[in-house]
């Protein structure tokens, strides 16, 4: 059923990726509030959530496609939009707290409603998204518009009934988990027990119960007694997909620590430490910055984890701590540009990475609205571009190539022409299908593999 034609460099079983949809303003002038800051599919892939700098969450729902004539999979359309976080001011510290949504994580569906956690720098919220498609009518004491009737005018009684109405999707905050983080929250991760979750800031990781908002347990604390001795911070954390006692956290020094909550209440001592020795020939002023890990993701199987640092993606086998089993260079041609990238702050960009459903392909973003996929089996990689120029549905994306040095071939782009304002930091892969969501600054692109 899937098209097996060669699609250029081909990533992932020679999939041909096609443009499907793009969401967001066409404007070149990007309003800061519209900058997308997180993208996440839910567990079934039917829902796709995005968070932005303005504190809003937009959820898209996939249309139920007609199974018989599946020319393409269903389109994603807006399902719900709500303001998750508002800007706040901490008067005690004279600090403004940004409303930007740092992460969204979906809970597995247990009933008709959907639940997700969204977080800004300081506060995590549990949102319930529910549908309402009928309403009660025929009250005795209330008019249809809600006004109360005078009981003396009631002459007969009737039983109210539910009547259908236009579908309404409501989002309501069910829990607010606040005041537990002194530093900026960078990660949230739901445990496989579906009852607890962790939240991580620069120096601490807290364990919460989804039902309890007034307390959390601190499980990792790397704050030194003297802040001047600080040498590393926590950059990302995630629970193991299957073992509810295991989680990992990555650091700005390029290390990943795996912790077992059964070992002790405070998991400051790791069970495993994953670290690759630095290549001394690559040493520069910026070695430390580029080794800082910006994202860590377990594979669906739980056997591997993937880390993203500035220039590469590394796959680690949980059973081997001293080096990754696979390393993929995302944009090695930037290594000679680190000083400029430091100047313009691009070197601090935090790229995320993701696995496909079968853990055979990994994807991450780059600059110039490029994103990269690496097929772990075939060892092939592909660079694609998210651009409105290819926006006819079912247009196959052409592989892109960056010319690092020397003569630039036709259709190649030289490093100097890359637009570093156009960065793809957030990508997500449908848990089951070959559908990907790629966020440029303020647009969300959806690509699918070519069907038929």
């Amino acid at each position, binding site marked *: 059923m899937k098209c097996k034609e060669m699609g250029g460099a081909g990533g992932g079983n020679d999939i041909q990726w096609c443009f499907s949809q793009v969401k967001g303003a066409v404007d070149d002038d990007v309003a800061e509030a519209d900058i997308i800051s997180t993208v996440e599919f839910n567990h079934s892939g039917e829902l796709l959530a995005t968070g932005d700098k303005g504190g809003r969450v937009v959820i898209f729902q996939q249309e139920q496609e007609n199974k018989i004539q599946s020319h393409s999979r269903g389109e994603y359309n807006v399902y719900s939009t709500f303001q998750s976080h508002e800007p706040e001011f901490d008067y005690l510290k004279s600090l403004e707290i940004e409303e930007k949504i740092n992460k969204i994580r979906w809970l597995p569906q247990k009933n008709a409603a959907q639940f997700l956690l969204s977080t800004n720098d300081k506060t995590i919220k549990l949102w319930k998204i529910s549908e309402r498609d009928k309403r009660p009518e025929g009250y005795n004491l209330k008019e249809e518009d809600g006004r109360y009737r005078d009981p003396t005018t009631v002459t007969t009684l009737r039983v109210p009934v539910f009547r259908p109405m236009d579908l309404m999707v409501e989002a309501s905050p069910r829990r607010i988990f606040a005041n537990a983080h*002194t530093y900026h929250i960078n990660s949230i991760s739901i445990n496989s027990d579906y009852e607890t979750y962790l939240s991580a800031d620069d120096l601490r990781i807290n364990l919460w119960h989804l039902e309890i908002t007034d307390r959390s347990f601190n499980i990792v604390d790397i704050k030194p007694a003297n802040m*001047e001795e600080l040498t590393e911070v926590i950059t990302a954390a995630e629970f193991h997909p299957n073992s509810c006692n295991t989680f990992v956290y990555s650091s700005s020094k390029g290390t990943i620590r795996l912790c077992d909550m059964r070992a002790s209440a405070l998991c400051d001592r790791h069970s495993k430490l994953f670290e690759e020795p630095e290549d001394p020939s690559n040493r520069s002023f910026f070695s430390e910055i580029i080794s800082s890990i910006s994202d860590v993701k377990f594979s669906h199987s739980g056997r591997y984890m993937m880390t993203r640092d500035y220039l590469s993606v590394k796959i680690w086998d949980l059973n081997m701590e001293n080096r990754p089993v696979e390393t993929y260079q995302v944009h090695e041609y930037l290594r*000679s540009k680190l000083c400029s990238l430091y100047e*313009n702050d691009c070197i601090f960009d935090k790229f995320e990475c993701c696995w496909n459903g079968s853990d055979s392909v990994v994807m991450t973003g780059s600059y110039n609205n490029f994103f990269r996929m690496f097929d772990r089996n075939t060892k092939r990689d592909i660079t694609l571009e998210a651009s409105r120029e290819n926006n006819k549905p079912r247009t196959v994306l052409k592989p892109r190539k960056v010319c690092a040095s020397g003569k630039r071939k036709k259709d190649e782009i030289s490093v100097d022409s890359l637009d*570093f304002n156009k960065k793809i930091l957030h990508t997500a892969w449908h848990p089951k299908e070959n559908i990907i969501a790629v966020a440029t600054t303020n647009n969300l692109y959806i690509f699918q593999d070519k069907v038929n």
Partner: protein
Amino acid sequence: MEFKLEAHRIVSISLGKIYNSRVQRGGIKLHKNLLVSLVLRSARQVYLSDPCPGLYLAGPAGSPAMPPPPQQQQQQPGEPAAGPPAGWGEPPPPPPARAAWPEPEPQPERPAAPVTGAGDAPRGGEVEAAEAAWRRVEGAREAAEGGAAGPAGGSDGFPEGPRGTRRQCGCPPGAEDRPGAPGACPRLACCCAPRPAEDEPPAPPAVGPRKRGAAGVGGGPAGGPASGSSPLKKPRRNSEEQPGGAAAAAAEEEEMETGNVANLISIFGSSFSGLLRKSPGGGREEAEGEESGAEAAEPGQICCDKPVLRDMNPWSTAIVAF
């Protein structure tokens, strides 16, 4: 040597970033500031470990051109000072004059800057230096409008900084305005000796309006045009000690140049000085989540080698202290 120049530039960029982070929305980002301080530490180590900067001859007058923000790279091909693989292999650029710190050799009088017009040569030069320094501090606000601003929204790069610094020695990197004469400087091989009237208008387009503006505003007494920034600069100017009277003009000019740098240091205090100090001790308690203390400490007080520091010029004081 090119390491030192690179390090010098990186230090000033880093200081600018830390300074800007204080006004960023959402509070100070611990992670980013930690990374910047690590870079600062590396650059400082290189900067301080290079023993004899004066011995490195400048071949060509041109030092590596300021790598422009990436989107302007078409103006300046290549990435000469970008990173070690590229940077290390380059011919050493003329080091800045101030690199020979303890020497109280007077810097030759600079000719009157044409733009400043009225006023004595040294005054004009000082004003320019003040302007340049002031512009650097103001760079954060201007970065959005300035031509040389970085691409990222809220970028706090300081492209002007090192350029302004190099103006101190009269050798702006572009070499577009300083055609050689490497042997001219009596003290150093850098082409900085007679301050030519190159500082101002011939600034390359990539440098942009800011540099021109810095010079263009000029004129008038030193106190005037710099008044916009004086709250920051004046106290430092007055309180900084001068290393040797003979170098009064040069030193004072240098001090103005670095005065705001030293000020930046004191403003954000001894953040992560545990990383940066050679020896432990000293330093202040950090408030939670707020690693930039705002205490106005003298830079010399942060490091324990106070007596030594007093003898060094403000720039190196700032480096060591930080």
